[in-house]
């Protein structure tokens, strides 16, 4: 298990967003997190990436507790993510967006950057080379010098993945990466996600509403409903699970 979520509870005011959620993620697997809107999926990603701490319970990554660590430290440990509402650096170019992803793996400070010391210069070259390789890998080299805000949504989502890859994560959290994509783009995305697992040996947690994508690429699925875990298992098991079907279709009002 690369990631272990133990008894996580999170409330906002009186609202219980997550209630005693536990599951583990196997190294090198794709784990999907599904559930109706408001089930607490994004909240869980925000807790894993350190945006806010859980009220109860613990998250451990590579057998180390990461509770209460700041997002930047967690990024340094090897967890990176994308966002449900695209959070690109809109006024920076496509390449620069990826270069920011290198921040956590580089160290030139204010003075060595300002004086352009040799160490900062060679680091800058390395950042550029690495970022261009990522850009090539995700297939956005032709957009290199365009502003991120000028990209169509499909490429925005790919660029967010590229930016996350630049941090050299071992665990990647994808928050609804297919939302807003058309069918062709969704297929391209699913190919990319599988390549990340198979070529880069990444572990991926995928929050997604597109069931075809989820069933196609996930190794395991966790289903949340109103902050509770109602099922966990392989795609085939989940598809036939009575509780899951009820959660999605509603039980009484049909």
């Amino acid at each position, binding site marked *: 298990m690369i990631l272990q979520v133990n008894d996580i509870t999170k409330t906002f005011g009186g609202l219980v967003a997550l209630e005693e959620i536990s599951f583990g993620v196997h190294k090198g697997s794709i784990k999907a997190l599904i559930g109706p809107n408001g089930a607490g999926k994004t909240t869980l990603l925000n807790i894993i990436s350190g945006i806010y701490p859980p009220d109860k319970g613990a998250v451990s990554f590579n057998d180390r507790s990461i509770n209460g660590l700041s997002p930047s430290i967690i*990024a340094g440990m090897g967890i990176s993510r994308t966002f449900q509402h695209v959070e*690109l650096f809109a006024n920076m170019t496509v390449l620069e967006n990826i270069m*920011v*992803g290198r921040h956590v793996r580089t160290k030139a400070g204010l003075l060595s950057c300002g*004086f352009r010391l040799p160490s900062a210069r060679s680091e*800058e070259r390395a950042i550029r080379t690495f970022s261009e390789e990522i850009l090539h890998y995700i297939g956005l080299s032709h957009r290199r010098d365009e502003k991120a805000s000028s990209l169509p949504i499909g490429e925005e989502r790919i660029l967010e993945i590229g*930016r996350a890859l630049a941090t050299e994560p071992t665990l990647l959290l994808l928050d609804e990466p297919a939302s807003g994509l058309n069918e062709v783009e969704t297929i391209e995305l699913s190919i990319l996600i599988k390549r990340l697992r198979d070529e880069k040996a990444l572990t991926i947690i995928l929050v997604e509403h597109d069931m075809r994508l989820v069933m196609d690429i996930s190794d395991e699925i966790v289903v949340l409903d109103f902050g509770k875990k109602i099922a966990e298992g392989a795609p085939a098991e989940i598809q036939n699970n009575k509780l899951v079907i009820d959660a999605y279709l509603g039980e009484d009002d049909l």
Partner: protein
Amino acid sequence: MQITNRRIFLAFFTLVLVFPFFLEGSYALSIATFAGINSLIAIGLCILMGYAGQVSLGQAGFYGIGAYVSAILSINFGLPVVLSFFMAAAASAISAVVLAIPALRLKGHYLAVATLGFGEIIYVIINEWGPGGPSGFGDIPKFNLFGYVFNTPLSYYFLIWITLMLVMAFSINLINSRFGRALRSMHDSEIASNAMGVDVPTLKIKVFVLSAVYAAFGGAFYAHYVTFISPSSFSLFQSVLVLMMVVVGGITSLWGAIAGAIIITLLPEILREFKEYDILVYGLILISSLLFFNKGLVPIIIERLKKGYKGT
């Protein structure tokens, strides 16, 4: 520095070096010197606001700390001026940290008000407890280095503008580096910047300190140039002026900060005919530049030039 930046830089530097020889009289030279001092503060605010996206209406506070600390240390403690300069910058940096830790949790208008309050506090302190109180004090030694005293307007002009060019080179390098990218990313999306490993709270403090140090150097240069300072030079109005420089010149351009500083420094000379109505014209310029050139002068000129290239 990138190639284009290097070219602009060399062209501007040449201009700076030959410019005084076309000027007549020491008055014009002193205006140019003030423009240089203001540019220094404006560059700092430009990095803080235009790149890092943090608002400050308190730059006059740091400017005042720079002037007062350096002047007092060199007069009362007999410190060499160069040393008092760096002590002034350190004092300003420390006060920036003290201000930044609580204030940078705030955003937008709230941050603006907090920094404005800081500026006012510094003003009150130097007004009440500063030497000479509201009427200020004089006999501040001229800037000197290795026994050479910069006591002619021409030497001080070169001192300021060559320092400014060095600061400019430093700032351009900074913006086009890992550090600068982190600043800009924080401006666009704090949450994503943080998730990419940028320690946003610490970065905010650092950039605040940087702008405070620039302003403090500006203040120290000012004090050791005019040799007489009083609190009125460090009031809220000065903070607003610096803000105007940055906005008029173009908030996302370091060159814009210099352009804005030159324009705003020259303005009172041009507006002399309007006498007491000059404040009205100031307001008109600020409002119209926000309405019609909200990107600022320099970015608009660059855009035009690019369009021109494509057109032909």
